[in-house]
């Protein structure tokens, strides 16, 4: 963990370079330099690595679902973990379906009451010990932790049903079903058209309905030898400048997910999620950036550990509220007073006041 002096040096160097980098763009003649030729296309050399893709795309779907702040709390047993449950997608249609579901669900949950006024969560340092502020902050972090647990523990299941779309404007449809956080089954349908623009490269356009809102979905998928990339944009039906873009890249053992939410043409937040699987641990890095604040969470789960505690290193850089670093040790415990499982956070703020403990809802649907 870095100390304050080191952080000061890092910031000073960064600011110094950002202030002194020369601007040479006017000396570049773009038209002269870029040859007028078509872009080199990837070549589809072998079968899609659908299994791998599916595993993590499914994780992202759950991530999106869990991010909903009003999601009900489900009872569960909270015992043990079953890492590595995988979902085998067997076709690119399934891949489209889960990608579209990710984008549309996150957009739907980001928008407040389905209008274009996004919820703007506040991230503030904890060190002033204002109880309400800490609670507010932790509620926000808790959303990420809920999604991180899904990612790290991975116990999802989905099913798919393919058919010709009944809608005139679309050729295909794929229906995706899964279990919601409150234990109920949900179903979402993507109606779409698909165009193969090159070998291994597809464009889709379609619609998906969530909460009676019809979201437009457009995307590109490219499959190369060892990697797959997908970008999808879900657009609000009443405002084409309000959308959520997801970019997913899966290369060998590295998975990266990036999200950008744009409201009325302005970027409101950008998030990224990277998962690394090591021999002894699983490390998930989550970043969330708005105009005012950068939040970085590094969540480490040590494998072969009895109590399944997660170590969360957090770092907040706020333009208005100051900076802060600290560590949270998180465990799932049973709250007898409420007869349910909750998260226990033991928070230690670096250079801050004493360690303190807080409890937050756990929104994860356990499977017996």
């Amino acid at each position, binding site marked *: 963990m*870095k100390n304050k002096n*080191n952080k000061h*040096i890092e910031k000073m160097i960064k600011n110094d370079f*950002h202030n002194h980098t020369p601007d040479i763009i006017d000396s570049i003649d773009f038209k002269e330099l870029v040859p007028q030729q078509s*872009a*080199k296309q990837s070549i589809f050399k072998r079968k899609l690595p659908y299994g791998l893709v599916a595993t993590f795309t499914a994780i992202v779907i759950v991530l999106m679902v869990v991010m909903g702040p009003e999601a009900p709390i489900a009872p569960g047993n909270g015992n043990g973990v079953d890492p590595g449950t995988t979902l085998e997608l067997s076709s690119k249609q399934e891949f489209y379906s889960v990608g579209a579901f990710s984008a549309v669900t996150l957009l739907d949950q980001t928008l407040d009451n389905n209008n274009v006024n996004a919820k703007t969560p506040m991230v503030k340092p904890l060190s002033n010990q204002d109880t309400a502020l800490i609670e507010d902050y932790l509620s926000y972090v808790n959303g990420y932790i809920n999604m991180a647990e899904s990612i790290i523990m991975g116990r999802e299941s989905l099913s798919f049903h393919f058919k010709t779309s009944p809608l005139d404007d679309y050729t295909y449809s794929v229906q995706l079903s899964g279990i919601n956080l409150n234990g109920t089954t949900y179903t979402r349908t993507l109606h779409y058209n698909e165009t193969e623009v090159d070998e291994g490269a597809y464009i889709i356009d379609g619609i998906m309905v969530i909460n009676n809102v019809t979201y437009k979905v457009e995307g590109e998928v490219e499959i190369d030898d060892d*990697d797959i*990339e997908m*970008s999808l944009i879900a657009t609000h039906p009443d405002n084409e400048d309000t959308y959520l873009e997801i970019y997913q890249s899966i290369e060998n053992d590295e998975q990266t997910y990036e999200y950008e939410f744009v409201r009325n043409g302005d970027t409101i937040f950008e998030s990224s999620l990277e998962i690394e699987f090591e021999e002894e641990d699983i490390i998930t890095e989550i970043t969330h950036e708005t105009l005012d604040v950068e939040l970085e969470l590094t969540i480490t789960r040590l494998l072969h550990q009895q109590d399944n505690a997660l170590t969360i290193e957090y770092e907040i850089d706020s333009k208005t509220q100051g900076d802060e670093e600290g560590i949270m040790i998180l465990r799932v415990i049973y709250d007898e007073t409420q007869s349910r499982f909750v998260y226990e956070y033991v928070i230690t703020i670096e250079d801050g006041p004493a360690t303190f403990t807080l409890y937050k809802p756990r929104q994860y649907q356990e499977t017996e």
Partner: protein
Amino acid sequence: MKLEQYVKAIQKNDESAFEAVYHKTRHAVYAMILPIVRDRSLAEDAMQETYIKMLKYIHSYKKKYKFMNWLLTIAKNTALDTYRERSKHTYINAQDNPDLFISKESTVEKRMMSEYYLSFLSKEDQQIVLLRVVAGLKHRDIAAILQMPTGTVTYRYQKALNTMKKGSKEGKDHEKQE
């Protein structure tokens, strides 16, 4: 929109996409070049040359590599070429050139504050620090660009931060004594 997506647009001759890429990468490119050429004027030339090469070879970029890593590798090689070329023709004396980057000899006031701190580090450690702090790269990406193990980058980065802190403290103590 992400860098790789802008690159696709550049490949389709979209000039505004190039401008976006330039603004997203220019600090990183400068941070890669400056510790190698050790001269701001040369760094500016190498920076320009880097973007010219990027555009010339944009169609050969393969998306299996991260674009930032690809661009910074061009920047590194261009900076090395620039430095070698300059060295052939000029004997560079740090004390004669106040614009020289990263030498302990000149006073703190003459330079960017960061230069003072970075002057406590080897050239390679400067690159690690700048790629991490200015370019915002992850340790594994820095490792790929500098062709060293990720663990080495992590270790050297932390050590470099401590070296700069220690060096600046000793410098201040020395000034007080004087």
